[in-house]
């Protein structure tokens, strides 16, 4: 019985959707699978390959697989490009000997371009079902597709559809069943010579024009939209407005959600303390588990907003226009215009921004962007900058304070661009895709595709990033709360002493010889350890060590304490140069375990998060050392 079941699974035919980006593949996939999709487990693949089991007419089932959008399966440039991934998938599937039907989704309004891929597929893979989408738009343009002529010319099955129509599922599933039946009866492989034809000539033959005036009118509409949206001034102003709304949404949405989560976790914490009493167990459940889960949930709305934004920008065709406008700006760092959106979003939070790098087609450009994103000045750095400026520039004018803040903010961008340049010449150097991108026709987005993207993005974030954050939060709790051997288990009403006796306190002291040249004592070191959970925890932790509660809400008592703190021999414990060194450290260090988890998720390896930690901490140490020792040498 078991063997029968596994043999039957092995024989389940695979139906693979391939097509150029924007050909309407996602829309068709959603229709065929009813929105049910799971991300296939293909080791080493950093893009999503979706798959779902679908029942065909006649009682047969097939696994429908959605490959990433691609232009070619022969010209792959690099194994990590979408083309390379698709090629590897198709080769493996063929080697496994499973019955396989390739469906090529072509945009009927750009048939000549789609047929270039058809030519490759026919030459290399054989059986093909050609599904021409946008038949409705073609009709609106006063043109039509002669599918019979196309079938005769290519010797394949072809159907013209509107992927958004409800009837499309039955039509295409019926065709799939017929093709698979034929596949069972006829040997699958074709001769490579069958893939030779002139795509432009064939497209001219099978596209029939009914009204040239209608077609011109529609093209003029696109041209008029481009005249505005790609205008050097108006276009930039519109793009800036769109990005402002996006940025503000990502930036501001965290606040109300955090407040809501705070309120909810206070209630839960109350129940936990009532149930377990005060002590380490409650502390672990409240600060470790509940705190970690809260951090994860705070990111969720941002991930949803970014997913919606990316889908809308991509589906409407506007993303490529925005990238066109800012392409030159980023070319100084050897990045393309599309990198602008993740880099901008990174100024709110690196976690959703790392996810947003999926809009980059070139794998090396994508990796470079992921590697520099932790340097962008995210919102979590701002309370730390605020505290340090309040503490050590209290006597300075508002202008000086602002200047320091602006300097810190833009230092992140500057170092990010410099790092990108350095990486493109070293760790991410290699053959990139040619710098040409398609500007697709403007289209209206589809709600069904949007909803399934959101579902997929949130469940995967919780599963793959959330679990890492939660686990790391628990480890951090242990470091900050479990006392070192031989130290008192807990000193009542003295959280500062408890922190001092903790493992983190011990590590902070042990690190003092290393951090002393930067001007950091064990207290700052403990703050740095705690703020690896989230940067803003630096403020709260320094507050606890210095016996001040609620420092994050009102940092002024802590600022004043830091200013007046003295060493045992009466000298100021922290000087302005210490604060500046700490700021330099915060600008550069990837003090954020959530970012590390996100890098791990998107690169599918521990090598790159380790690299991010290594290079940012090395840079941060060096910068803090130069600032502290340089100012000391100048008599600061």
């Amino acid at each position, binding site marked *: 019985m078991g063997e029968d079941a596994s043999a039957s699974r092995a024989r389940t035919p695979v139906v693979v959707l391939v097509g150029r980006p924007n050909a309407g593949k996602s829309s068709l996939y959603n229709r065929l699978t009813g929105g049910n999709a799971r991300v296939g487990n293909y080791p080493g693949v950093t893009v999503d390959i979706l798959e779902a089991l679908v029942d065909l007419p006649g009682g047969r089932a097939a696994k429908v697989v959605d490959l990433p959008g691609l*232009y*070619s399966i*022969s*010209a*792959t*440039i690099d194994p990590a490009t979408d*083309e390379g991934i698709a090629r590897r998938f198709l080769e493996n599937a063929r080697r496994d000997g499973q019955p396989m039907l390739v469906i090529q989704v072509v945009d009927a*309004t*750009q*048939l*000549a*371009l789609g047929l*270039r*891929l058809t030519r*490759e597929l026919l030459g290399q893979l054989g059986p093909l079902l050609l599904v021409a989408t946008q038949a409705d738009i073609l009709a609106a343009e006063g*043109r039509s597709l002669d599918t019979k002529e196309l079938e005769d010319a290519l010797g394949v099955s072809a159907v013209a559809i509107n992927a958004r129509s409800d009837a499309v599922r039955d039509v295409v599933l019926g065709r799939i069943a017929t093709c698979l039946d034929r596949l069972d009866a006829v040997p699958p492989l074709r001769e490579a010579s069958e893939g030779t034809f*002139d*795509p*432009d*000539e064939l*497209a*001219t033959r099978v*596209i*029939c*024009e009914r009204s*040239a005036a209608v*077609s*011109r009118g529609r*093209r003029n509409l696109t*041209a008029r939209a*481009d005249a505005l949206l*790609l205008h*050097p001034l108006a276009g930039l102003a519109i793009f800036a407005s769109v990005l402002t709304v996006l940025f503000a949404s990502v930036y501001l949405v965290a606040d109300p959600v955090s407040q809501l989560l705070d309120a909810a976790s206070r209630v839960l914490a109350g129940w936990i303390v009532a149930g377990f009493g005060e002590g380490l167990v409650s502390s672990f459940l409240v600060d470790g588990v509940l705190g970690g889960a809260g951090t994860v949930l705070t990111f969720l709305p941002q991930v949803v907003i970014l997913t919606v934004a990316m889908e809308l920008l991509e589906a409407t065709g506007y993303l*490529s226009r925005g*990238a*066109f*406008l800012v*392409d*030159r700006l980023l*070319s100084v760092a050897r990045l*393309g*215009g599309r990198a602008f959106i993740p880099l901008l979003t990174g100024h709110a939070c690196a976690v959703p921004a790392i996810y947003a790098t999926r809009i980059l087609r070139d794998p090396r450009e994508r990796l470079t962007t992921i590697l520099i994103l932790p340097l962008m000045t995210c919102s979590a750095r701002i309370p730390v900058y605020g505290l340090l400026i309040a503490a050590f520039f209290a006597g300075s004018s508002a202008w000086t304070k602002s200047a320091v803040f602006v300097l810190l903010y833009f230092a992140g961008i500057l170092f990010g661009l410099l790092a990108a340049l350095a990486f493109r010449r070293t760790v991410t150097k290699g*053959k990139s*895709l*040619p*710098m*040409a*991108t*398609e*500007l*697709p026709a403007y289209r209206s987005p589809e709600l069904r595709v949007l909803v399934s993207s959101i579902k997929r993005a949130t469940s995967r974030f919780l599963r793959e990033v959330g679990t890492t954050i939660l686990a790391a939060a628990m480890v951090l709790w242990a470091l900050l709360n479990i006392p070192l051997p031989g130290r008192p288990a807990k000193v009542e009403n003295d959280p500062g002493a408890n922190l001092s006796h903790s493992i983190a306190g011990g590590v902070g002291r042990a690190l003092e010889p290393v951090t002393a040249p930067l001007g950091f004592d064990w207290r700052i070191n403990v703050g740095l350890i705690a703020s690896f959970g989230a940067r803003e925890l630096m403020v709260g932790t320094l507050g606890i060590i210095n016996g001040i509660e609620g420092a994050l809400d009102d940092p002024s008592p802590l600022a004043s304490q830091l200013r007046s703190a003295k060493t045992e021999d009466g000298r100021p414990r922290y000087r302005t140069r210490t604060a500046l060194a700490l700021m330099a450290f915060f600008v550069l260090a990837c003090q954020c375990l959530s970012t590390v988890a996100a890098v791990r998720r998107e690169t599918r390896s521990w090598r790159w998060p380790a690299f991010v930690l290594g290079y940012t901490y090395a840079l941060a140490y060096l910068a803090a050392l130069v600032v502290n020792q340089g100012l000391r040498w100048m008599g600061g």
Partner: protein
Amino acid sequence: MVTAAKSPVILLDQLRPGAHARVLHLSVDDEQAAWLGALGIFEGQRLSVLRRGLFGGPLHVRSRSGGEFAIDRSLARLIRVVTEFPGRPDADIPPIGNGGGAHG
């Protein structure tokens, strides 16, 4: 900027908005040429330049095969083209299916 009337064989980068040209040669390696060909930029393809990005930004071109592309200037400098329709700078390239014929 070289005008079409003086020298019909120029680099894509040198075309002004409204100009039309046919791709003669792509000075990139074979695999990149194949990828560009799959994208829709290949020897023999007819292109019209719609606009040039600010401060040396990309070129916005429309192809005879129906696609529109943003081509980085550094890449455009590697694409040799022969200009066409020199007397009609505003002439549009009709897409396939709009009465245009086949081309090589």
